[in-house]
C-alpha cells in the first residue's frame, strides 16, 4: 500500500476513500461477517449486493458506527480510524441515507435539510443562508425536479423525497454517502431520477456505496460491484467486466467461473 497523498481524495486516486480488511462481526453465536474486504474509491459508485442475510446491513451499520466490528481494519483515506458511534462517522464525512428517509412531512425542504444543524444568526434562524445553501446543494446535484425549496415535504413525490434525503446527506461536505435501497419504493421514472442523482454524487467526487436488490439499477449506475455471500466478500469486480448473470451466480452461489470464492470456500460457507 502506498502512502496516502493529496490526490487520493479525488477521483481514481490510488488510496481508496474507505478500505475494510478482514472484518469480522458476530451476534452471539451467529457469525454474520467472516473476514470481509471492501474498497470504496472517491468518484465511484460501489454497489453492495447480496442475498438477504448476506451481511450487507451489518457491514453498513459497522461503517456508520452503529455497530462495532469485532475484528478487522477500518481505513479511511488510508488512515486507520476508530468509528464507535454515528457522530464519529459523521465527523469523518460519512453520511447514511436509510430506507425510511427520516424526513418530517410537516416541514419544508430547507427545514428538513438543516434539521438539527440549523444555521443561526444570534438566537434566530438564518433562513436566508439556509435557503441559499439548500438551493446551491440541489443545483450542485443538478436536481431539476424540485423547483421550490419552500414546499412541505408532504407535497413531494417519493423520488423527490429521496432527493431531499440525499441532498441532506451531501450538504455537510460529506465524502462518503451510503444509500440503503434508494429506489426500492419508487416507480420507473422516479427510479431513473434517483439513479441520475446517485451518478451525479460520484461525478462530484464523492464515494458512494449503493445497496440494492435491483440488479438492473446496479448494472446501470455502479462502477464496481461488491458481492457479499454468507458473510464473505465473494468478489469486488468492475461492472464493465461482468455480465448480469455472473453477478446473479455470485450472489446465489458465491462464485461464477473463475471469479468469486474458491469452490472449497463456497462449500464451507454453506
Amino acid at each position: 500500500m502506498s502512502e496516502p497523498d493529496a490526490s487520493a481524495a479525488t477521483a481514481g486516486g490510488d488510496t481508496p476513500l474507505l478500505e475494510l480488511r478482514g472484518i469480522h462481526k458476530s451476534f452471539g453465536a451467529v457469525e454474520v461477517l467472516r473476514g470481509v474486504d471492501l474498497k470504496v474509491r472517491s468518484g465511484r459508485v460501489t454497489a453492495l449486493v447480496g442475498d438477504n442475510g448476506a451481511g450487507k446491513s451489518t457491514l453498513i451499520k459497522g461503517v456508520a458506527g452503529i455497530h462495532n466490528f469485532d475484528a478487522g481494519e477500518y481505513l479511511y483515506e488510508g488512515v486507520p480510524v476508530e468509528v464507535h458511534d454515528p457522530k464519529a462517522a459523521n465527523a469523518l464525512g460519512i453520511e447514511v441515507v436509510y430506507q425510511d428517509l427520516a424526513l418530517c412531512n410537516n416541514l419544508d425542504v430547507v427545514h428538513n435539510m438543516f434539521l438539527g444543524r440549523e444555521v443561526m444568526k444570534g438566537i434566530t434562524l438564518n433562513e436566508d443562508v439556509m435557503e441559499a445553501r439548500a438551493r446551491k446543494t440541489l443545483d450542485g446535484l443538478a436536481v431539476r425536479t424540485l423547483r421550490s425549496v419552500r414546499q412541505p415535504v408532504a407535497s413531494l413525490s417519493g423520488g423527490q423525497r429521496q432527493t431531499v434525503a440525499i441532498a441532506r446527506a451531501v450538504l455537510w461536505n460529506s465524502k462518503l454517502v451510503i444509500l440503503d435501497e434508494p429506489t426500492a419504493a419508487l416507480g420507473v421514472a422516479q427510479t431513473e431520477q434517483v439513479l441520475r442523482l446517485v451518478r451525479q454524487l460520484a461525478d462530484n467526487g464523492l464515494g458512494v456505496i449503493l445497496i440494492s436488490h435491483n440488479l438492473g439499477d446496479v448494472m446501470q449506475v455502479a462502477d464496481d460491484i461488491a458481492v457479499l455471500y454468507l458473510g464473505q466478500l465473494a468478489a469486488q469486480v468492475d461492472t464493465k467486466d461482468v455480465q448480469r448473470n455472473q453477478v446473479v451466480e455470485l450472489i446465489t452461489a458465491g462464485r461464477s467461473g473463475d471469479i468469486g470464492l474458491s469452490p472449497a470456500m463456497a462449500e464451507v460457507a454453506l
Partner: protein
Amino acid sequence: MTTTPAEQVAEGQEPGGVAGAVHAYVDRLRGGDLGSLPAMLGLAALVLLFGSLEGDRFLSSFNFANLVGQSAMVIVIAMGLIFVLLLGEIDLAAGFTAGMCAAVLGVTMTEHGWPLALGLGACLLTGVVVGLAQGVLVANLGIPSFVVTLATFLAFQGVLLLIIGDGGTIGIRDETILAIQNDNLPVWGGWLLALVVVGGYALLTLMRRRGRAAAGLATEAFTVWLAKTGLLAVVILAVTYFLNEERSRRPEITSIKGIPYVLPLILVLFVGLTFLLTRTNFGRHVYAVGGNAEAARRAGISVVRVKIICFVLCSTLAAVAGILFASRDNSVSPTTGGTLTLLLAVGAAVIGGTSLFGGKGRIVDAITGGLVVGVILNGLPLLTQEAGIQFAVTGAVLLIAASVDALSRRRSVSG
C-alpha cells in the same frame, strides 16, 4: 402521487402581484392547508348572526370590550396548549393548573400579604413546576400525556379545594392585578399602541423583504406587502377606534373608554411566542418532533428536552391565565379554571387551525379560535338563557372544528 395545484404554482413562474398571491392562496386551500380560514369564516358568520338578531346589545363597544375580557383566559391557555398539541400530546389539566396558580396568587398576596412581584413569582413558579413534573412523566417515563394529565386534572382540582379551604373564595385586592382585566389604556395610549403595532409590522416585513432580496432569494411582490400591511392597519385602527369610544352607560358619572390592559398583554404573548415558534431553532424542533419524532431524534434533537420544555410553557401560560381569572373575577374560587375552561381552550386551538394530530399549528390560532369560542359564549346568552342549548351548540362547534381538522389532514396526506 399526483401533483397538487399548490405544487405547480410553487414550481412554475410566480404570478406577480396581489392576484398571484390570491391565486396561490386558493391553491393552498385546495391542497388541504386551510390555515385560519375556517375560524375567520366562523367568526364572520357568528358576528353576522348575533349582530342581526341582537344587534344593539351584541355590537355595542361595551360588549366588545367584555368579549375581549371573557376570551382572554381561553386564548392564553390555548396559546400554551398549542405547544403541547404541536407534539401530538395533550394537557387536560391546563384549566385547573390555571385555577391552582390563581389560588397560589390569592393565598400569598391576600392572606400572607406578599408583595406583587413575589406573589406573581410564586404563581408562575407553580406553573413551571407543574409543567416540569408533567413533562418528565410524559417524556422520560413514557406515560401517555392523556393519562398523566387526566390524573393531574383530578389532583389539581383537589389541590385547588385544599388551598382555598372551606371558606369558598379568596378575594383579590391588589390594584395592579385587578387593573389587568378592569382598567383601560388612556385613549392616546391606545392610538400609540396601534401605530407601534402597524409601524412595527410594516418595518419588520420590509426589512425581511430587503434581506431576502439582498440574498438573491424570491420575495413577495411589493403590492402584496402593501395589501397585507394595509389590511392589518385597517383592522387594528378599527379595533382601537371602537374600544376608544365611550362605553359607560352613565358617562356623566364614570367614563369607560380605551383598550383594556389585557389586550396588549395578549399581544406581547402573541408576538413573543410566535417568535419562539417560528424564528428559533427550539420552535423548529417542536414542529420536527410533532411531525416525525424518530426523524428528529436521528437529526440529533433531544426529543425529551423539547417535550419537557413544551409542557413547562403550557403550564406556565396556564398560570398567566390564572392571573387573568383572578383579575376578572376579583377572587379565586374552587371552580376557577374549571367547568368548561380546558375544553374551550382545546376547542379554540383546534378551531383556529391547530391539529390534534401534532406537527401543525400557530400561536395566532389561539386568538382566532379563542374569539370564535368567545363570541359563541358571549352571543348565545343574548339569544337564549337555556343552558342546555348553550352546551349543545358549543359542543357542536367543537365537533365541527375537529372534523375540519381530520378532513383537511386526510386531504393533505392523499394530495
